[in-house]
């Protein structure tokens, strides 16, 4: 009976989705004319090079036009890290250290990860510093850095994240983001508004506050994701 109901529900959902999507032609240009934008997509594409000097339009949207969403998004990650800590909280005895892996990894893996680790960090930093020029940005770069720390946690039994460093990085990066927004509010009467010179397109230093915010986001995301991984890895096994 329950099975029948669920299959009926699936059929209804599938039918509705298929009918709706068949009305939306794949590959059709719904944005309209770029010179007289009627949709937000066309507006962002036409204004970004001139008014923000940012090559990557997605970065311009994520950090500037819809920067408020990104602030919310960063707080979602922050909340997830906090919530995880509160859900899995256990009193630790003083000086107790729970190893992240049970068996020590092979010497090859250990040596290899020591070699790769700095490269991953540099790659992550590159991705978020060049967020306004090339694909990528704070979230991607931060996630890459977190995978670097993950590699170290997996290959070295005694590798520990320094919690107070994570807290500091996380808080300072978050405060930087919110403060840049508030400075915009004071200087230009609009939260997150650009108050720096925008420079020339495709320069490393261009786009005003966009690279600054993305670097802050990068640090924050890296710290939060590493914190999440560290919390999860250092819970006692059954």
């Amino acid at each position, binding site marked *: 009976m329950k099975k029948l109901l669920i299959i009926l529900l699936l059929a209804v959902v599938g039918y509705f989705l298929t009918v709706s999507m068949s009305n939306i032609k794949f590959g059709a240009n719904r944005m309209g004319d770029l010179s007289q934008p009627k949709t937000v997509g066309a507006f962002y594409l036409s204004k970004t090079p001139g008014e923000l000097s940012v090559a990557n339009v997605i970065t311009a949207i994520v950090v500037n036009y819809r920067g408020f969403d990104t602030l919310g998004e960063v707080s979602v990650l922050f909340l997830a890290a906090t919530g995880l800590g509160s859900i899995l909280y256990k009193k630790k005895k003083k000086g107790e250290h729970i190893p992240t892996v049970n068996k020590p990894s092979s010497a090859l893996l250990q040596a290899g990860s020591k070699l790769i680790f700095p490269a991953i960090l540099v790659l992550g930093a590159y991705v978020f510093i060049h967020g306004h020029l090339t694909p990528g940005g704070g979230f991607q770069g931060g996630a890459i850095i977190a995978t670097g720390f993950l590699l170290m946690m997996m290959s070295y039994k005694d590798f520990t994240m320094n919690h107070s460093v994570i807290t500091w990085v996380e808080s300072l990066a*978050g405060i930087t983001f919110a403060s840049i927004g508030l400075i915009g509010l004071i200087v230009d009467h609009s*939260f997150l508004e650009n108050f720096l010179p925008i420079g020339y397109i495709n320069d490393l230093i261009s786009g005003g506050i966009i690279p600054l915010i993305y670097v802050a986001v990068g640090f924050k995301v890296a710290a939060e994701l590493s914190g999440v991984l560290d919390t999860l890895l250092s819970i006692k096994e059954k």
Partner: protein
Amino acid sequence: MVISPVHYIAVPLLAAFLMPLLAKIHRELTRIVPGLVILYLGYVSVVLMNQVMAHGTIVEVIAGWNAPWGINLVYSPFTGFLASMMTAMAFVIWLYSYRFKKVDSQPALKYFILFMMLVTGTIGIVLTGDIFNFFVFLEITAISSYSLTAFYRDRDGAEAAFKYLLIGSFASAFILIAILLLYTQVGTLNMAQIAVRMHDVPTHMKITILILFLVGLGIEAEMFPLNGWAPDAYSQAPSPVGVTFAALVVKAGVYGLIRIIFTLFDVHGAYEYLIVMGAITLVMAELAAIRQKSLKRMLAYSSIGQMGVVMIAFGIGTNEAVFGAIFLMFNHAVIKGLLFMSGSYLVYNTPNKEIQYLSGYGMKMPLISLFFSLGALAIVGLPPFAGFWSKLYILIAAADNQMIGLIALILGVSIVEIVYYFRVVGRLYFGKPSKGSIMQKPTYGGVIAMSLLAIVILVVGFYPDVITPYIHNAADALLDKAQYIHSVLPNADLSQIQNLK
């Protein structure tokens, strides 16, 4: 710095990011800072509400891009009223939870961060004028609710939280698909612009999108049959969080529902849908409430029932009905807040929070019992208390529209409410005291919080005029769709906009 609506979001976020550092300086700061932040938001509310009452809707532009290109916050008399109400309730809840239970400093820090973000998320839902931004705030609210529901480990919090998370994920999936379909049709995410362009959307598409939104937001607004998560979450979460669900989170869900129906869509039948679903929700919830053994679950079902009444009133859609609905939202926040706060002290040490162990508590915990009885009298809508006025307005509005069935329904349900509330109150005062039960002494913050709410109930009950001008403006602002669009998009073509009601 000029006071503007963005302070509601930016200041708590800044404080939340700062709090882990402040905790390193002194552990008491983690408890005090959220209170200071909410106090500041209260100041912002007072300033902005005065501005709004004098000069009309404030539209705050984010990142310097005017609507419809950027994100904006709309502080109309309606959203402003809700935001101010939420801020006030948040302050009372903060007082209540200040030292509610003795908790280690690390969980306390996390609790207060999550609580502050929950408040920010709900206020953001109400203020934002952008549909995707609405979704983001909904997720902030949802994630902090899940984590807070599972906060205690000596009860079934994790189970309730997992249920809530499962249903909440469905809600966000539905809302995301709705936003996606909407974007392909109108090419914008700004709510006012969507309302302007909605006229050109084919009807079958409109209805599909509306159904997706109604299902998704119905989950947040505890509409039947999507409210299975609510009683568990209410009863398993820490008591201050249960209060927050009743006073803030549900309100945000209902707000989303009516914003979608009243402003975004011009579909016939959506109002009737609200009435029907509200009525079903009301009946099912009250019938469930009368069968509950646990006090907190009873309160939770009663809360769902009240939301049903709110939906019915919004569905009637006339000015008086909307006035009554907003009044009831306010009353419900205050009264249900008081009931939850006092009720959770009553059942603090009883097994399974069951009502049957409460015999004779009226003598043992006189103050708390008094608060609970006051709340019970007010919520069933007996005359000199706040709940009476909102119910009266809704009944008058229903009578004006010749909806006799609805009047009978609401009155009939009131009798059910009287039965199950007075069962508890009767047991409190006339039950035979049982021996050996341990009383929980309420904290000073808790007593102050409950007294504040009780004073509000009495003052609004005797002088409803202190609050009605604000609610009148709020109802006008909600019903005047053209005004909303005009304040966000001054150059929009309003010829196609009509108010269906």
